[in-house]
């Protein structure tokens, strides 16, 4: 285990400069996510155009892994259909809990940078919180928790 494998440059960059870090005031869907273990809290906002995610953003506070993961999430699902976003969630779950062979890493693009989290089991929830929260938003629940 090497810290550089967890805190890859792209993760450090997205933590320092999170993308789509804002509220969408006229969001069609939103949900709050909370990790009771470490106190990470974030809100995901979704703007829909039919079945397509036309805009997605987040705000809140959290560790570098949770902020970078949420930032990468917004870049990855914007413009995709709800079904495609759900499939990405399933892929991310496999990436974070199984091994690289279980996932089509090139298809994940920048999200593949989170594969190093797997070696730090205590941090998997940090990376998955935003995905659970997006899932809750898309299914019109207003809260997600990693517990």
């Amino acid at each position, binding site marked *: 285990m090497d*810290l550089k494998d967890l805190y890859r440059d792209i993760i450090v960059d997205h933590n320092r400069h999170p993308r789509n870090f804002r509220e969408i005031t006229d969001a069609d869907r939103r949900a709050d996510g909370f990790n009771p273990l*470490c106190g990470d809290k974030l809100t995901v906002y979704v703007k829909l155009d039919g079945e397509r995610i036309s805009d997605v953003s987040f705000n809140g*506070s959290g*560790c570098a892994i949770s902020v970078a993961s949420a930032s990468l999430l917004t870049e990855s699902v914007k413009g995709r259909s709800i079904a495609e976003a759900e499939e990405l969630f399933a892929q991310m779950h496999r990436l974070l809990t199984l091994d690289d062979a279980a996932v089509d890493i090139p298809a994940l693009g920048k999200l593949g940078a989170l594969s190093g989290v797997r070696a730090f089991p205590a941090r998997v929830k940090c990376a998955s919180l935003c995905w659970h929260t997006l899932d809750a938003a898309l299914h019109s629940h207003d809260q997600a928790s990693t517990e």
Partner: protein
Amino acid sequence: MNAVTARLETAEAFDVAAIRRDFPVLARTVHGYPLSYLDNAASSQRPRAVIDAMSSYYENSHANVHRGVHTLSQEATDLFEGAREKVRRFINARSSKEIVFVRGTTEAINLVAQSYGRPRFGPGDEILVSWLEHHANIVPWQMLCEQTGATLKVAPITRTGEVDFAAFTALLSPRTKLVALAHVSNALGTVIPVHRFIGAARAQGVPVLLDGAQAVPHLKVDVQALDCDFYAFSGHKMCGPTGIGVLYGREELLGAMPPWQGGGDMILAVSFGKTVYNGLPWKFEAGTPDIAGAIGLGAAIDYLETLGMERVAAVEHELLLYANQQLAAVPGLRFVGTAPDKAAVVSFTIDRVHPHDLGTILDQEGVAIRTGHHCAMPVMEFFGLPATARASFAFYNTHAEVDRLVDALRTAQEMLG
């Protein structure tokens, strides 16, 4: 133990290298670095003497207590009740009837809530706690309030992390039925000047429970001098085993309280017509107790008494001063909780580096600290923080470990800051 005694009598200074050899785990490495264990407020480590006492009990003397006439049962009972007497002496209770073995501080507080509070409290009654409390000294009272209609009142804290005494006394009223206060804050390390608070409460006839989980391992605690009514603490934070803790209660209060749980050992006679409960303290110890845990706790007390609690407190205070000085030089570090009287607990944040990331990065250099809300979410809310990093020291920690903490913090800043 005799070797330890001899060593301390002949050595002027506290021989920390020798003390560390008493703790087997301190010899291990983590990620290739020597373990630097700075998470003692969550749970301390065990000296060999505690591990040996428990092993010896299981290897030689295990049987159920208070039951058989056979030799092993008698030995187990003697060891178990001997541990109770060690606890009594350690906190200077009047009688071993006042020492109830429980699973830990949490269970002790729940016992008082359900056995003392539930039959007595009702709508209009108030329970007074402080904003500093650990969840274990909040949630049992919230549950009791739901059950009885009583109200939970919260004494505020100051920006330095001290309980506001004037506000506390203003909240004391004829409606107050119980005060429940931390002796030492787990999240911030504040030592609460409990004599003042107990004095104010008792002047109005209000009983006081102290959550001593963080105090007993680090200070000399004398329940008669404190003049509190209940005192709760855990074995595992004072070099003893997990799963064992103590509720001290004033004998007249415990005697008037109904049993909390029913079962074996807490009765004198059972029939379907009438069951007669056992006397103190066994009335509150239904079922087979954690015999090995109690014996281990007794061994931990022997160990701490050999070191001397005054010396433990002095050594830890010196570590706190050194840590404060070294950490103050880290750019962007902010202390959370700056009361003048503190146990060796340092809670802090670092600009642009989240505590959770600090925890991971420090662990990679073998430095174990706690990060998060420390089971004191209201304290975090008060300071407007989601979490802090917390280094908490024991007498076996060293200046070199403080230096390694500081070095690891700089690594984290370089990586993420």
